[in-house]
């Protein structure tokens, strides 16, 4: 067991966390006369280390994930979901949401595709909540920074929010608040392609390059903000606003995060720096969930398919879920960190 624990710790710190890279950059900076213990040296070290680490993780992860995703086109998820009922359909929908390739610009065709196949509204919403909130990428990324326990809990709780959120929307009988053109979308069995391994690999490579191009500016921005927090903001400020002294920290972090549009890869460095500076874990996770799950562009898109009342319920359910997660993690922080 000890042996196993040691192997896991090595994997955690050196492979996922890339501590060696941090040391290497520190030594490199020292050798050109920049002291990593100084403010400027420390900021530069954080910036270089985080940008390189996140880019390596991003490229590896997106490649592997896209390859897995090529086995789960939405047509297939829809067919699988049609065979399940009740809460099982919601659970499965939340799970499939994590592996089905999804971008917010496809949310309406996907919504229509699900509805036209007779899937209940709640099942569709479980999918729409879990898809941006939880994915395989966030699991590994969180593992690299906060450890395996936090990562697994984040994913599990994200799935729970998606299942409960979908179920609540179902129970409230919100069908009448879906736009007519979605409700009456004609059902059309899409043809399922069977790509070869070569095609799947090409797809994974294209996804990796496209995601990298799209997300890289966010990473630079996120890491830059992280570096400022890491080395320049006084610890007392962060503790005051996001630490255990402020009972409203979670709510504040959630509300600030909701309208923001960023990828989890851009959010992570900010979260990492805040945690280092004494912010509470639950508060940080709430911020990350809020940023990735809800954003103005995706809400504007969804508004085209649902009426304001359902949109408000969707936003409300997500916010309440995220805030609860924040307080839960804050309460358990001493157990899991």
């Amino acid at each position, binding site marked *: 067991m000890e042996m196993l624990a040691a192997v896991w710790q090595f994997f955690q710190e050196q492979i996922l966390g890339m501590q060696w890279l941090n040391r290497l950059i520190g030594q490199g900076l020292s050798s050109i006369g920049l002291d990593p213990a100084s403010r400027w040296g420390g900021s530069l070290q954080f910036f270089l280390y985080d940008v390189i680490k996140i880019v390596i993780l991003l490229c590896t992860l997106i490649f592997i994930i896209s390859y897995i995703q090529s086995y789960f*086109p*939405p*047509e297939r998820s*829809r067919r699988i979901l049609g065979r399940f009922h009740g809460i099982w359909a919601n659970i499965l929908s939340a799970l499939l949401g994590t592996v089905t*390739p999804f*971008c917010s*610009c*496809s949310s*309406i*065709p*996907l919504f*229509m*595709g699900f509805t*036209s196949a007779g899937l209940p509204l709640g099942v569709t919403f479980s999918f729409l909540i879990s898809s941006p909130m939880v994915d395989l990428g966030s699991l590994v990324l969180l593992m690299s920074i906060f450890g395996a326990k936090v990562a697994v809990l984040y994913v599990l709780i994200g799935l729970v929010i998606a299942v409960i959120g979908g179920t609540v929307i179902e129970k409230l009988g919100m069908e009448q608040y879906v736009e007519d*053109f*979605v409700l009456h*979308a*004609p059902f*059309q*069995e*899409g*043809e399922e392609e069977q790509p070869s391994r070569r095609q799947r690999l090409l*797809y994974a490579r*294209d996804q990796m390059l*496209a995601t990298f191009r799209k997300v890289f500016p966010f990473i630079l921005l996120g890491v830059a903000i992280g570096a400022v927090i890491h080395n320049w903001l006084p610890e007392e400020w962060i503790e005051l606003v996001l630490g255990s002294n402020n009972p409203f920290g979670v709510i504040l972090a959630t509300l600030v995060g909701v309208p923001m549009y960023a990828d989890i890869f851009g959010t992570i460095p900010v979260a990492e720096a805040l945690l280092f500076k004494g912010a509470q874990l639950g508060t940080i996770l709430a911020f990350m969930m809020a940023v990735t799950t809800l954003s103005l562009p995706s809400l504007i*898109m969804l508004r*085209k*398919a649902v009426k304001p009342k359902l949109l408000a319920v969707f936003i409300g359910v997500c916010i309440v879920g995220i805030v609860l997660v924040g307080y839960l993690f804050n309460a358990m922080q001493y157990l899991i960190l």
Partner: protein
Amino acid sequence: MGLFGKKRAEQTGEESAAIKVLGSGCAKCNQLEESVKTALTQLGLEPEVGHIRDFSRIAEYGVMTTPALVVDEKVVSSGRVLKPEEAAALIRKARGME
């Protein structure tokens, strides 16, 4: 109202195109349209590409991920921004030009 009338007219004009991009007007959809135009030029065809943005019409093709490419009313690709060569290969295949 005038605006709506114009949009409708555009939409019908595009319906008649044999090769169409289905998309919600996102950046990826416009990239696909460009690729397909390049592909058509390479194939020596008129670079005439319709672009359907109406979600109900997109659903009629059974497409759940945009952008999608339709050749002669048949969906040949969805959820991907094709490169011009890939688009050309799909068009050739759909038309039996090989």
